[in-house]
């Protein structure tokens, strides 16, 4: 139970960063932090005590394996996170090239 609460606390730290930070790169960092916490919650859900990693040894008899479904979901979500991070970095580098600053408030009041 405490592990899930710690993951949710990490999510709240990421959310705090998203709302308060003004630097483009730090907003991207806090977005990644929220993603890490959600991935951890998903994998924690699928964990089974005394379960083996989901690689079946052809010879051995019936074993308890960890649930592979949350792992498949998280693998997909990691790559979705990479996709959005890549496009956010593209915009951040482009805005920096034009305005020499990463501060979102300064960019907002500069002329077009």
């Amino acid at each position: 139970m405490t592990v899930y609460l710690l993951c949710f606390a990490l999510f709240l730290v990421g959310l705090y960063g998203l709302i308060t930070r003004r630097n483009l790169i730090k907003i991207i960092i806090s977005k990644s932090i929220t993603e890490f916490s959600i991935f951890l919650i998903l994998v924690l859900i699928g964990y089974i005590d005394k379960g083996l990693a989901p690689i079946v040894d052809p010879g051995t008899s019936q074993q308890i394996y960890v649930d592979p479904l949350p792992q498949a979901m998280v693998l997909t979500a990691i790559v979705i996170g990479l996709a959005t991070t890549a496009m956010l970095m593209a915009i951040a580098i482009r805005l920096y090239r034009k305005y020499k600053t990463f501060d979102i408030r300064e960019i907002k009041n500069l002329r077009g």
Partner: protein
Amino acid sequence: MDALIPLFIVIPLISAFLIMILGKLVKGFHRYFAPFTLLVLIAMTIIVFANLGGSSIQYAVGGWGLEKGIPVGIFMVLDAFSVLMLCIINLLGFIALFYSISYMAKYTAESNYYSLFCLIIAGMNGVVLSGDLFNLCVFLEVSVIASYALVAFGVGKTELEASYKYQILGSLGFMLILLAVGLIYWKTKTLNIADVRQVFEAGYNQPYYIFVQILLIAGFGLKAAVIPFHAWLPDAHSSAPSPISAMLSGVLIKAVGIYVIIRLFFNMFVFSHEIALVLTALGAISMVVGSLLAIVQWDLKRMLAYSSISQIGYVLMAMGMGILLLLKGNNEAAAILAIGGGIYHMINHAVFKGLLFLNAGAIEHRLDTRKLKEMGGLSSAMPITSTTSFMGSMSISGIPPFNGFFSKLIIIIAAINGRFYLLATLAVVVSIITLAYFLKFQRFAFFNKSANKALSKIREVPFPMSFSMIILATLCLALSLLAIPSVSELILRPAIDVLMQSDLYSTTIIGI
């Protein structure tokens, strides 16, 4: 007929990849191949719509059907409600693509534009056809990530900023949805929507249920730009190229936001009174605040974006009222009216909001401005644009012969029958405010003395743009036929039944 369902997603995907490969080799390939694929999709939609007739088709992807009564693989579900959504998506998609043949001439890298457009269509078809929770999230992200890039297609400062804010809020929304899906999987151990309903019907504890539903409302509310989560919509929709803002406002926030909220809260969750109140309140607030914000805008596309928020509020309020009436149980007719009015208004809004954004694009194409103050006296210079925009404005503000009037009337009648007098008065007041700011748009854009001198030089927009505006304008009139009881019995009623008998949805999948 079953084999058609996967093709709805595969055909736009293959056309997107072919456009990227052949786009640079064959001159003009992308400009005509993309509308052709959308035409094929419209033909498929008509075939499916013709012989579906109220039944629902389950397609087990990969051949993994049911094992020991539990659906194992991913199911694609096509029923009466998702067929209506398919019609909106593919029809609006074709018209916006046909419009952008001449509109996108002033942008560079056109083959990227057409490829990303086909990906949005594929993503939305994937969301509408999916019967599996996580699969729905994946295809939601396909269409939303493609729309991030298209919002910032003309890489100016405002577009980049709007796309940045849109992406940050979009990925926060996706994380909330992923958390909700994780919690649902934690409790029900399954991802199939019908199967989740079976487990939830067996029983759930209240705090968990409310928390998961609030998370989903927040997540999909971010995608549908409901009021507390609407911060990204005005910037994103006003800085995108016009065919894209027509697609975003007309179709994307519906297929990816409102459709999913309706599908989950009617077919997956057991109705609960508190959540129905939350949905109705969200709908009413975004209806009122959206129109109040729209009236003060002087930028045409920002005004249209805020009016999208208020019209989406109508649909959400109607759906919330439908759940409340179903929960009370005594007033079946009013519930049917409310849900039918919501679906009908969603279809109408897709048509006339798409038309209005295309008109704004036509004005911008000729005058290169979006400020209402700099326009003026265009009715003589651009006859087609002014008549179609007049028809669009009249139908969004609910003037009788047009479709907007009938769908708002149905929602208001449902509110009165269900004794929600406050909501009925709010709906009428907001309709009047909508009429006010659209008259302002008509006066400043078309009937005012022109401020700029170069009015004589302005000619009508080229054929693809005017033709697509004419199609949408005639649709605005044709859709008002849907209000006739006999016609609505044929088209709207199957969709309402899908939402009303929600346990029918799960038994058809589990009961194979």
